[in-house]
């Protein structure tokens, strides 16, 4: 089937299918209110998935998402008393440090990002435990963060606007700039990229930093949305983020994929997830469903060309 060749189309049809099915069962799925709510929820996943996609594009994976997200949320909340700049700055710093750590491991120590980012994840878990002493994190996010996290402008939730701006930036970068070309090149073959004059180390580190910052932003915004940070707030984001990227057509081995696909993947997963919760499917069922969906959708992509 020709449709099966284009991942973005597959996930788009999937999204439409889910919406239609959902709408038949619960007509309010088609309401503007519901759409707005879903997009708002999707935006958080979308920002996280952006970082995930960038790393997957260069052939790595960032498994430090959960606790970098949580740490950024916790730290920015804890420091909210010191003012907006420090609060947001500290949170972003978490992302920067995490990204540098990940990038260092991948680019310089040449340790596979699967295991290294898992270790980084664990370190940030340790940092969170250390800071909070195991208790609920203190502090509430500053007003500005709350505004972005949960506020609206002209009826549109700010976080959606934020995601839109981010999307435009990413689409332009990936498609129209040198940097974007280099990202795809490094993902396809690092050796050839190096011999073609691309500063591969820099790019790898930069991409992991971007991922770390995306994760941090998600954590900060999420704390704004929930009016607090909480332990393990990042855990529910990792698998859906990776799933969104993969379902959206990005190859897990790197070098190919479009951001539009990731966006559609995020929306698809968000809709599916909320449909499942409306149907009151227990967590167990949701996990199974997700796993099956990921397999089903990745099964329909990528036909390997016959090797010469």
């Amino acid at each position, binding site marked *: 089937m020709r449709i099966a060749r284009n991942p973005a189309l597959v996930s788009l049809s999937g999204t439409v299918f889910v919406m239609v099915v959902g709408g038949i069962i619960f007509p309010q799925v088609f309401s503007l209110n519901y759409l707005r709510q879903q997009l708002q929820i999707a935006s958080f996943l979308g920002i996280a998935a952006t970082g995930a996609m960038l790393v997957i594009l260069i052939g790595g994976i960032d498994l430090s998402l959960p606790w970098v997200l949580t740490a950024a949320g916790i730290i920015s909340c804890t420091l909210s008393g010191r003012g907006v700049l420090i609060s947001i700055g500290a949170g972003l710093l978490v992302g920067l440090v995490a990204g540098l750590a990940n990038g260092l491991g991948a680019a310089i120590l040449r340790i*596979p990002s699967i*295991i290294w980012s*898992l*270790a980084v994840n664990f370190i940030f878990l*340790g940092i969170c435990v250390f800071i909070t002493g195991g208790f609920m994190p203190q502090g509430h996010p500053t007003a500005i963060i709350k505004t972005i996290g949960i506020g609206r402008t002209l009826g549109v939730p700010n976080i959606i606007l934020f995601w839109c701006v981010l999307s435009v930036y990413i689409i332009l970068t990936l498609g129209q700039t040198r940097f974007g070309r280099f990202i795809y090149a490094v993902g396809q073959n690092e050796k050839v990229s*190096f011999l073609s004059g691309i500063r591969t180390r820099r790019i790898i580190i930069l991409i992991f930093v971007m991922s770390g910052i995306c994760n941090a932003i998600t954590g900060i915004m999420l704390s704004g949305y929930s009016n607090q940070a909480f332990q393990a707030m990042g855990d529910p984001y990792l698998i859906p983020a990776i799933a969104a990227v993969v379902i959206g057509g990005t190859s897990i081995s790197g070098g190919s994929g479009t951001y539009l696909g990731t966006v559609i993947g995020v929306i698809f997963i968000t809709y599916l997830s909320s449909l499942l919760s409306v149907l009151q499917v227990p967590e*167990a069922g949701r996990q199974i469903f*997700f*796993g099956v969906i990921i397999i089903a959708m*990745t099964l329909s992509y990528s036909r390997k060309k016959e090797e010469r």
Partner: protein
Amino acid sequence: MPAINAPMRSNWLRYFLRRNYRTIIAFAMLVILFIAYLLVYPGRLSDQFFCAWANQGAGLAFAAVGQTLVVLTSGIDMSIGSVFALTNCIASVFLNGDLYHILIALILILGAGICCGLINGMLISYTRIQPIILTIATGAVYYGIALFIRPVSGGSVSEALSDALTYNIFHIPTSLMLLFGTLILFWVLLKRTKLYIGIYAIGSSEKSAFMSGVKVRQAKVAAYMFSGLFASLGGLFLSLQTLTGDALIGNTYTLNSVAATVIGGTALAGGTGAIFGSVIGSYLLRTLKGLMFFAGIAPMAQPLFEGIVLMCALSIGSIRLLGMKSKIEIFR
């Protein structure tokens, strides 16, 4: 002029070291850490102590062995934690009662592990889906099933069985006997077969392995199947230790099984490594934990410390990069 034959005996050591140096280094580290642990432990160094130490590492060791077989084929099993949790939960429901029921339960537990592994292996061999994303997906499915079986942690496990298998026999912890017993059985049955060397070959160069007549698909399915089997053994053992089932324990076992594998000397790219090394790696991680606990490091700082040490252990392999003569050597 076969002059080379003469010095061969003495060269045996050189080749052995060349092949296994990473595992040997891991073993040395384990010995050092264990001695430190002995020094730091406040209580008496009794049988109880050794038993506890052995038990702590056994569950992870089983998981790590399974993970190693998969990693050797240059794949990865991100679902191993979920299979671990799943079998743990099954045990907490069924591993009770008389001998008959226990046997049935054991069949169920090991069968579940084998099934999960088979599903992983078949999907990876017969579709183009990469192991990492596939096992993340199947991991979610197995986790869901585990949640189904045991939504809240609890349940019970035959205490008689637990007592029998978690203490010691003639001063040797039973857990270690089980662990090494299984490994030796595995070794004896499979070491010289085409399957075993095929697994290494596939991880080293799948294309060359194929050209050399290795049955790539079957070997991969077998590797994942064994992974599931060992994960179920680990989950079984954990249930004997904790006497409960908990669907949430999976996550840490996935991370730690990969870490134990890498620290024990197996390359994530596949092709080189030793299963025994992963056992060493597991005990290394667990000894470290115990060491920190008794060395008086603040409990709230322990995970952080653990993470830092883990990172250091992983970085050791990167020292070889210093001697690198060409910048493109780092690219595979």
